[in-house]
C-alpha cells in the first residue's frame, strides 16, 4: 500500500531535483538562517527572500504556489506571537475593549508579529522544497555528509522505512475501532477514561507489533552478517558543478544577510 499522504517527495527531473542532496541540505539551512537573521520589519529584504523561495519552487517545476500553500501550515503557531501586538510600547494603532480591559495594539507590536509570521512562512517554504525535491534516502546521505553520527542516521533510516508499515497498522487499528464505535442514535462513547484506555490499548498493541517486528528485522540483518556496526556504501565526492552552486548559494545568502544588518 502506498501512503503518499505521508511522503512529501514529488518526482520530476528539474534542476533542483538533480542537485546533489548535500548541497541542497546545506543551502536550505543557510537560507533559513538568513531569514532568521533578517531584522524585524525589513520588508524589502523579506520580499527578496520570498522571491528567492518562489524562484526555487519554479525551478523545481512545482509551480509558484506549491510551497506558498504548504508553508501556511505553520500559521496556527502564530497565535503564540500574537500577544506581542499588545505588549510592545510604541505608537498606538487601535484599541480593543473587552469587558473592563483595554487592549492597545501598537505599531512596533504589529511589526513584530508580522515579521515573525512572515519569516516563519518563508523559512518553511525552503523546507517544503527540500523534501519535495529530495528523496529521503538521499537526505540520509546528506545528513551523514554534514556529520550526523552514523548510528543516528541508521536509526532514522530504519524508522522511515517502517513508518509507512506501522502507520498502515495504526490506521487498520483505528478503522477496526471506528467500525465498532457505532451506535443507533449517534450517542455513546462512554467515558473519557474508557476511551483513553481503548486508545492506550491500541498504542500498546502497536508497540508490541513494533517490537516483534524489530526482532524479525534483527534476524534478517543477522542472517546477512550484521554485527552491530553501521556499515555504509561510500559516497562520491561533490563534483565541481555542485561545488560552484554551493559556494554561489552561500555567498548570495551571506550577502543578503549583511545587507539586512547594515540597512535595517
Amino acid at each position, binding site marked *: 500500500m502506498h501512503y503518499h499522504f*505521508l511522503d512529501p517527495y514529488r518526482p520530476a527531473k528539474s534542476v533542483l531535483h538533480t542537485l546533489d542532496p548535500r548541497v541542497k541540505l546545506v543551502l536550505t539551512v543557510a537560507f533559513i*538562517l538568513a531569514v532568521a537573521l533578517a531584522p524585524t520589519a525589513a520588508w524589502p529584504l523579506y520580499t527578496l527572500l520570498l522571491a528567492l523561495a518562489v524562484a526555487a519552487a519554479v525551478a523545481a517545476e512545482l509551480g509558484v504556489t506549491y510551497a506558498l500553500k504548504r508553508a501556511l501550515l505553520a500559521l496556527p503557531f502564530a497565535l503564540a506571537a500574537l500577544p*506581542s501586538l499588545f505588549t510592545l510600547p510604541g505608537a498606538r494603532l487601535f484599541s480593543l475593549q473587552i469587558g473592563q480591559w483595554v487592549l492597545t495594539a501598537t505599531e512596533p507590536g504589529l511589526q513584530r508579529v508580522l515579521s515573525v509570521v512572515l519569516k516563519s512562512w518563508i523559512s518553511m517554504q525552503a523546507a517544503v522544497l527540500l523534501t519535495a525535491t529530495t528523496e529521503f534516502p538521499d537526505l540520509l546521505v546528506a545528513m551523514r555528509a554534514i556529520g550526523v553520527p552514523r548510528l543516528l542516521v541508521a536509526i532514522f533510516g530504519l524508522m522511515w522505512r517502517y513508518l509507512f508499515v506501522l502507520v498502515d497498522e495504526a490506521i487498520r487499528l483505528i478503522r477496526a475501532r471506528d467500525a465498532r464505535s457505532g451506535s443507533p442514535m449517534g450517542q455513546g462513547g462512554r467515558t473519557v477514561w474508557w476511551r483513553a484506555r481503548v486508545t492506550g490499548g491500541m498504542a500498546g498493541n502497536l508497540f508490541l507489533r513494533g517490537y516483534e517486528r524489530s526482532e524479525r528485522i534483527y534476524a534478517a540483518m543477522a542472517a546477512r552478517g550484521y554485527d552491530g556496526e553501521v556499515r555504509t556504501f561510500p559516497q562520491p565526492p561533490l563534483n565541481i558543478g555542485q561545488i560552484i552552486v554551493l559556494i554561489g548559494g552561500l555567498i548570495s545568502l551571506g550577502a543578503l544577510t549583511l545587507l539586512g544588518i547594515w540597512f535595517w
Partner: protein
Amino acid sequence: MLFAPKFLPLLVDSQMHIPDGFLSVLVSVVCWGLTVLGVGVALWRTGQELDERKIPLMGVLGATIFAGQMLNFSVAGGTSGHLMGAAIAAILLGPWPAVLVMTSVVSIQALLFQDGGLLVLGANVFNMAIVGVFVAYGVYQTILTLTRNKPWGTFVGGFVAAWTSIVIASLVVALQLALSGTSPANISVPAMGLIHMVIGAGEGLITIGALAFLYATRRDLLGLAPAGPSRASNRAVWIGGLIIALALAVLSPLASIHPDGLEWVAEEQGFLNTAQDAPYEIIPDYVFPGLPDERVATILAGIVGALIVFGTALGVAYLRHRRQPDTAYEA
C-alpha cells in the same frame, strides 16, 4: 502533530513543535549546543548498554511512536489528545535509547512533514527528546521507588511521568519563546503550562493504557530497560530529570511574574535584530484575558509548580533512603 483546542483561549497554540522564525538565532544556537551534547552522550551510552539489536529496535519503536501519534481520542468538546511518546519510550527502553528514539521521531517530523522547523530543530529535540525523556524517567523512577516496585507503581508512575514530561516540556517552549522576544513570558508561560496540564492528562492516559496492555501480554518487555539506578548514567538522568522539572516548575512562575530578566536577554539580542526593538513593558491589566488578574494566573501556575516541587522533594528524600536491589540487565 496538530491539536485543535476549541474551548481554551486561543492565545497560545498547544503545538509543541516550534516552527522556524519563532526563536531567535541565539536561542536556537544555544539549544543546538545542548542537544548535540545530550544526543552525543546518548549515543555513547547506548552504544555501551544495548547489544546489536539496538538499531532495529530503536528504529521500529521510533516508527511506532510516530504511528502512535496518529491515534487519538476525544477528550472533551472539540479537543483530542494524542501521544508525544517521551515517557513511554523512557519507560520501555531506558533513558538513553529513549533520547535517540525521540530524537529520530522529532527530526523526521521536522524533516519530512515540517512539523517543527529545521533551524529550531535543536530546540525541539531538546524539549521533547532530552527534557521530555529526562523528566519522564526521573519522575517514573522516583514513583517506582516510592511504591517499592509494586505493579500499580508502574501505572501511577507512567501517568505522572507522562503528564509531567508534557507540562515541563511546554514550559521550556514558553521560556524559549520569551527569551527570543516572540512572546512575553507572563502570557506564554501560564498559557502553555495550563493548556498542557490538560493535554498531559491525555498523554498520561494513553501511556497507562499502553503499559497495561504490555503488562498483560508481554510483561517481559517492561523489563527491557536497564534496571533503574543500577547504572551511574541512568542515576544521573534520574536526578537530572528531577532537577530539570523542579527548576522549571519554580522558574516558570517566577519568569511570568517578573519577565524583566527574560526581556533583558531578549533585548540584548538586539544586535542581531534591529536597533529599534524596544523591550517589553508589561501593562498588567489585560495581559491574560480570561483570567481576571495576571496575578491570579501566575498564582495558579505557582500552586501547580509548588505541588510539583513538593512531590519531587518527597521523591528526593526517599531517594536517600532507598533500598533498591540491583537487578541484572537482561539483554
